[in-house]
Structures are given as structure tokens and as C-alpha cells.
């Protein structure tokens, strides 16, 4: 695969995802990130069990922080985003038209967020995997195969509402 994903942004959302942090920091996963061109990682870790700061591992610079008001800047400046399965984060990344790999947190099996990630993978907008398969996923998949996410279009809905709910024209 071509080495075009220099800047990588990883986000775990508002809670914590210890296993993802651990997995990303492992030499083998960093190695496979390097293979696709990764030189700098910006890593939003939330409340995960790790110390924020700037690290240099396996020749990759990793900037770790816990929270920001908005992660949009980090998404926009990244070449590849790796995200937890939260709908908010996923949609934000897709709207910014960035290649996206969703890592499903298997400890949260009862939540329905996987449903959305699954469907979006079927539709070809993102890839998803688990912590165990990040390495192989990164090595096998081609992010340039993803199709852009179409923009939402509420006009039909608004038109329907305007037909159903009317205001009487004022009598003059």
C-alpha cells in the first residue's frame, strides 16, 4: 500500500478505551502504522489509563492528550482517523471526508453503536475491526477504496412536515 497516511488521529471519545491505547502503543501495531506512512500520531485517550504527553516510539511521534472542546481540528488535519464506534465521532470523521477505521470496544457489547459501524462498512464508508485485528486490518485494507459519505438531505422531511402542519393564512 502507498505510504500516504503521515498524520494519524486516534480518538476514544468521552469515556475510556484502555485496550485500544495499549494496542496502539504496542511495537507491532506502530510498525504496521509506519508501513502505511504514519509518522505522527495525535491520540485523544479520554480517561484511559495512560499518561498524556509527547512520546517517541518506534520512530513515530505520538502526541497524547485527554480531552479537547472540539476534536474537529485534529480530524481535519489528519490523513487517517482511527476512532471508537461512537456515532458522533464516526459521523464527524465521515463528514470531514477522512479515511476512517473504527475499532469496536468488545467490552461494550450491549450497546448498539456497532450496528451503525457495521452498516457504514457495508455501504463502503469506513472499515471496522476490533483491537485484536487492528494490525492485520491496517496491513490488508486499502482506504482509498472507501466511498465518500453523502451529505444529509433534510429537505424532503421538512417539506413533509410543512404539508402536515400548516398555519392558516391570515384573514385580511
Amino acid at each position: 500500500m502507498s505510504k500516504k497516511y503521515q498524520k494519524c488521529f486516534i480518538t476514544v471519545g468521552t469515556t475510556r478505551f484502555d485496550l485500544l491505547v495499549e494496542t496502539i502503543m504496542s511495537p507491532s501495531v506502530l510498525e504496521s502504522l509506519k508501513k502505511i506512512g504514519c509518522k505522527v500520531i495525535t491520540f485523544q485517550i479520554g480517561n484511559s489509563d495512560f499518561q498524556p504527553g509527547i512520546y517517541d516510539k518506534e520512530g513515530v511521534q505520538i502526541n497524547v492528550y485527554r480531552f479537547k472542546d472540539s476534536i474537529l481540528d485534529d480530524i481535519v488535519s489528519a490523513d487517517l482517523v482511527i476512532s471508537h464506534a461512537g456515532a458522533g465521532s464516526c459521523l464527524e470523521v465521515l463528514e470531514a471526508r477522512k479515511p476512517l477505521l473504527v475499532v469496536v470496544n468488545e467490552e461494550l457489547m450491549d450497546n448498539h453503536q456497532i450496528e451503525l459501524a457495521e452498516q457504514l462498512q457495508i455501504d463502503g464508508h469506513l472499515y471496522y475491526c476490533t483491537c485484536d485485528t487492528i494490525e492485520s486490518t491496517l496491513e490488508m485494507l486499502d482506504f482509498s477504496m472507501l466511498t465518500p459519505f453523502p451529505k444529509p438531505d433534510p429537505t424532503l422531511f421538512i417539506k413533509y412536515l410543512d404539508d402536515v402542519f400548516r398555519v392558516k393564512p391570515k384573514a385580511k
Partner: protein
Amino acid sequence: MGVWILGWFVFAPLVVILLRVFYLIFLVLSTDSGLESESTLRTILCIGSGGHTTELLRIVRNLDHQKYQPRLYILADNDVSSEVKIHKAELSPAKYALERIPRSRNVKQSYLSSIGSTLYATLHTIPVVYNFKPNVIFCNGPGTCVPVCVVAFILRCLFLIDCRIVFIESICRVRTLSLTGKILQYFADVIVVQWPQLRDSCYRAKYFGRLT
């Protein structure tokens, strides 16, 4: 004889109300229950939590704000982040207000205890909805949605308000309705889903493409 008259006075209104309830449910389930208002449409927006708030605000910002006003945002009393988002979404403070009610179900709360807290939240909601007299209620998720809609429906049955409920299922729900959706499908006037396959599990659901 006296017993009969007394019975008549007690039961006749009950029967009327019951018939009204059945009639309204029939109306809701079988037709596009429209509404024609004299002036603007008084609108309640039930704010859920976290992602649901963002989603609802993004959908309603496309509405004609001149037509759907004044707007009342109802949010849960322990919801701090939504308030900021609402103020950001609304430009002029004159046209909207905020109201807080107790949360009907917290994350990870058991179903049994959530029945109690839903009842408590419902009681708090009655004066809020009655005083505002909404024409349209928009809701999309957990938190405040069920009590507000139940109260609005009961008040509509009693001819105290005339309002329609629009429920928008979250984009997260691809194959199954959320618990809120499963409850509301029986008395929300309009049910909107954002994935076409969801129409299989709710025949009344309308799909207009992705909204957010």
C-alpha cells in the same frame, strides 16, 4: 335508583374518555394526523442526551423558525452539556425558553426502578406541557422524551391541548427501534427513521433519507 344515577355520572365521562383515547390511537395509527394552526406553531423540543441532543438540534435547525415558534426546550435536570449546545444553535434569546424536568431513566438504571422515576418525571412534566400548550413536539431519544409525550397525549385526549408528536429515531439505530421508539410508535403522530430497513420493524415509520 340513586346508585344508578351516581354510576352514570361516574362512568359516562370515563367511557367518553376511553372512547376518545381509542379514537385518537386509531387516528394516529391510520392517518397522517395533520394540524392547522391559527398562528404560529408552538413547538416543544425534547432534548435527550449527548449525541441525541446534537442530532436533534442539527435536524431542527432546518425548520422555518418563523413558523415553529415560540420554542420550548425540555431537558433533563442533570444534563449540563446540552444547554450550551442549545444556546449555540439559537440566535435570538427572545424566541425560545428552557425547562428542566427530572430524568426518567439514567444510563444503566434497571427497568423496574425506571418505572418509578418515569412516573415522577411525568408528574413534573404535566404543568410544563399544559402551560406551554404546544402544537408540535419534536423528540428523538432517551431522557425527557417519554414523559413529555405521554403527558401531551393524555392532555390531548382530555381536549386540553391540541398537539402532534414527531419522533425521529436516531441514526445509530439501523435495524431495531430504540426503547423510546418502541413505546412511542403507538401514539406519536409521525415516526421518522433514518435507515430504510427500519421500516420493516415499524410499519408506520417514514423514511426521508438521512437527516443528520
